[in-house]
């Protein structure tokens, strides 16, 4: 029988080891540095093996914290984040993070405990069908049936998670599998006939795009997280510079192209810059690179890039033509495709007029807000943060107003410094993600920019900061409300603020103190600057509660159902 997808396994030694030990060895083979997790009944054998192995394990205070930390780690290191949780509630607490990683293509390998094989399906204590639950939100998932399968499954899982379009892979390990013994085997290679991601672009399509560029008068690049996932920053820079193509970025693509470059027009989309959105609206050639034309980016598709020939470079063929009809489809890794484009480049088109038009938009209608002496404007807060950290910090956020202000005003000139929950829009993501980022990049300052609402969803992870003495700075953009909900209620629901105002709040400084962490409340620019400067030099965790203008709105804005050219609040 040709069971050829079964890995070639050759016995190295005949000694028998437990599934839990095979798990540890699998991690070591994949050069895993850290596991983010939380123990429980079904994973006791695995935790026992962890104890003996001295594998670095970060104990979070909730499984959701563990998975978001792993996401932050993966985002800044480019390596898969590893998560371990127990069966039942441990596993279901991971669901939000799994969905988040899936939609934002973050590589994770998640291990969940499961009740013993013989009681699966009997509604046993702490049993949940996590394989069934996570099927639509994982790139792939497994339940281990035999201990001897574990090494092969782990090797496959790490391969699947971190190749092609990256994503989360879950491995469910029944308790008896972790206890059962199997011969120690070397997994030499894996064979996945149903998984062969296309990395090299079709050279004919590459040629077509190079030809289209020669004709184009108004080209624009839209760059997304695919550029970062493929480490294609240099190739992108060379490509954009050669043809002189203006660059608009998606929320998740920030940092893939330097913000201070003259060709960079900043973020496009619902709260993007006027110039970036008009570039996408008016262009005659749109080149999407590793971006998936999400609805928050395109606005009403009836008005999106209607005058343009659309070229789309993506490693996931299913993204091409999904939302926007595409004339030049290129399936391939962003780096290889841009390199191929650079190698075969032809004559440059004439885009002078277009560049003049866009620079005019940029200088005449930049991002703007009205400041005054009395209030601490959240936009100003981001500018101060940029100034104090010299734009070099890793910044992570939740979702909402503070996220948009950070994206707009903390401009990123380096890649892999920006961690945000884009597709799923998860409150409570930013702080634990910052923990993971600090674990992955201890050499860089890490700032969690969070809202007062989102912070209260995962603030239990302050315990981890204290535990590991991680110098993460938490900046609470405190407007005493669920700001983005409040903004929509103000604009679209005649100011009926239904359950979006959080007047009653804990004293965040005292809360930090309860965990032994320093904190400060800042009510003006001077206090913010002083506290941030001190926190950065102290090399200790710090909570900065910033009392910002409570009714500030994020502008410009594209209302739902409107096109990119129908921005409101462009002049602040």
């Amino acid at each position: 029988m040709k069971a050829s997808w079964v890995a070639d396994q050759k016995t190295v030694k005949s000694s028998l080891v437990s599934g839990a030990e095979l798990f540890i060895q699998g991690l070591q083979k994949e050069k895993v540095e850290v596991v983010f997790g939380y123990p429980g009944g079904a994973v006791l054998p695995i935790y026992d093996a962890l104890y003996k192995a001295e594998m670095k394990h970060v104990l979070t205070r909730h499984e959701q914290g563990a998975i978001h930390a792993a996401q932050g780690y993966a985002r800044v290191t480019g390596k898969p984040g590893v998560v371990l949780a127990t069966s039942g509630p441990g596993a279901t607490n991971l669901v939000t993070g799994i969905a988040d990683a899936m939609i934002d293509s973050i590589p994770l390998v998640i291990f969940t405990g499961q009740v013993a094989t013989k009681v699966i399906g009997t509604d046993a204590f702490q049993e949940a069908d996590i394989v069934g639950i996570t099927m639509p939100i994982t790139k792939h998932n497994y339940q281990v049936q035999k201990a001897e399968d574990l090494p092969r499954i782990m090797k496959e899982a790490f391969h699947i998670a971190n190749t092609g379009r990256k994503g989360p892979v879950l491995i469910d390990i029944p308790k008896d599998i972790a206890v059962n013994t199997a011969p120690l085997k070397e997994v030499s290679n894996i064979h996945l006939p149903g998984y062969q991601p296309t990395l090299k672009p079709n050279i004919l399509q590459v040629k077509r795009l190079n030809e289209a560029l020669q004709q184009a008068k108004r080209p624009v690049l839209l760059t997304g997280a695919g550029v970062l996932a493929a480490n294609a920053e240099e190739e992108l820079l060379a490509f954009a510079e050669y043809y002189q193509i203006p660059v608009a970025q998606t929320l998740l693509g920030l940092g893939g192209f330097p913000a201070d470059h003259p060709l960079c027009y900043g973020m496009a989309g619902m709260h993007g810059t006027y110039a970036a959105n008009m570039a996408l609206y008016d262009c005659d050639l749109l080149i999407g690179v590793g971006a998936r034309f999400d609805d928050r980016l395109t606005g009403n598709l009836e008005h999106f890039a209607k005058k343009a020939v659309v070229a789309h470079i993506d490693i996931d063929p299913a993204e091409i033509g999904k939302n926007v009809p595409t004339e030049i489809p290129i399936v391939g890794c962003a780096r290889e495709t841009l390199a191929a484009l650079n190698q075969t480049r032809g004559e440059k088109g004439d885009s002078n007029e277009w560049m003049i038009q866009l620079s005019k938009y940029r200088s005449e209608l930049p991002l703007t807000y009205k400041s005054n002496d009395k209030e601490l404007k959240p936009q100003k807060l981001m500018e101060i943060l940029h100034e104090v950290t010299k734009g070099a910090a890793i910044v992570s956020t939740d979702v909402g107003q503070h996220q948009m202000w950070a994206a707009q005003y903390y401009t990123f000139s380096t890649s892999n410094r920006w961690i945000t929950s884009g597709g799923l829009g998860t409150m409570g993501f930013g702080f634990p993600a910052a923990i993971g980022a600090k674990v992955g990049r201890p050499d860089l300052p890490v700032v969690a920019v969070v809202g007062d609402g989102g912070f209260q969803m995962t603030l239990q992870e302050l315990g981890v900061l204290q535990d590991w003495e991680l110098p993460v700075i938490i900046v609470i953009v405190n407007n005493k409300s669920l700001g983005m909900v409040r903004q929509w209620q103000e604009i679209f629901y005649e100011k009926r603020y239904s359950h979006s105002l959080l007047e009653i709040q804990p004293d965040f400084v005292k809360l930090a103190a309860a965990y032994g962490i320093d904190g400060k409340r800042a009510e003006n620019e001077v206090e913010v600057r002083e506290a941030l400067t001190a926190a950065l030099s102290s090399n200790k965790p710090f909570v900065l509660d910033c009392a910002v203008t409570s009714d500030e709105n994020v502008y410009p804005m594209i209302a739902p159902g409107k096109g990119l050219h129908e921005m409101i609040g462009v002049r602040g």
Partner: protein
Amino acid sequence: MRRIISATVLNESGVLNRLTGLLTKRQFNIENITVGHTEDPAISKVTLTVWVEDDRKAEQLVKQLHKQINILKVRDLTNMALVSRELALIKVLTTPDTRSEIKMLIEPFRATVLDVSLESVTLEVTGDSEKVDALIELLRPYGIKEISRTGITAIPRGTQKKVLELHPYSIM
């Protein structure tokens, strides 16, 4: 329009769940689905019929299915020369008067009688969906007690017409 999609999958537990779950997630409604193993017992073939609005939706469906790790190959058979068959079991009410009449009726359809009781006969018919529909309509006046249909299974013909027309979005 109706689409016939054929997927070659690894014969592992959960594959069908994965496939149908994906269709639910992307809002595709399965009209019918048949599954069975192929010449290689480790590989199964799934044939499904779905209603989709347009070509772009159909292309999305094929691409999304193709992304699944344990789905090896996906083909949209709709525009191919193919042979497709469906099997139906039909239980029809009979009286001593109608029994032989029904036997006459089903003959051109090459349906066979599988079971006879005092009040009914159970027939088996195989063919394309139109043929099965036609027989059911013909038998309806006698009173149909029960129908069970397998859904379509299909295979492309050995010889295909050359297709030169390129699809504007297609990259598969």
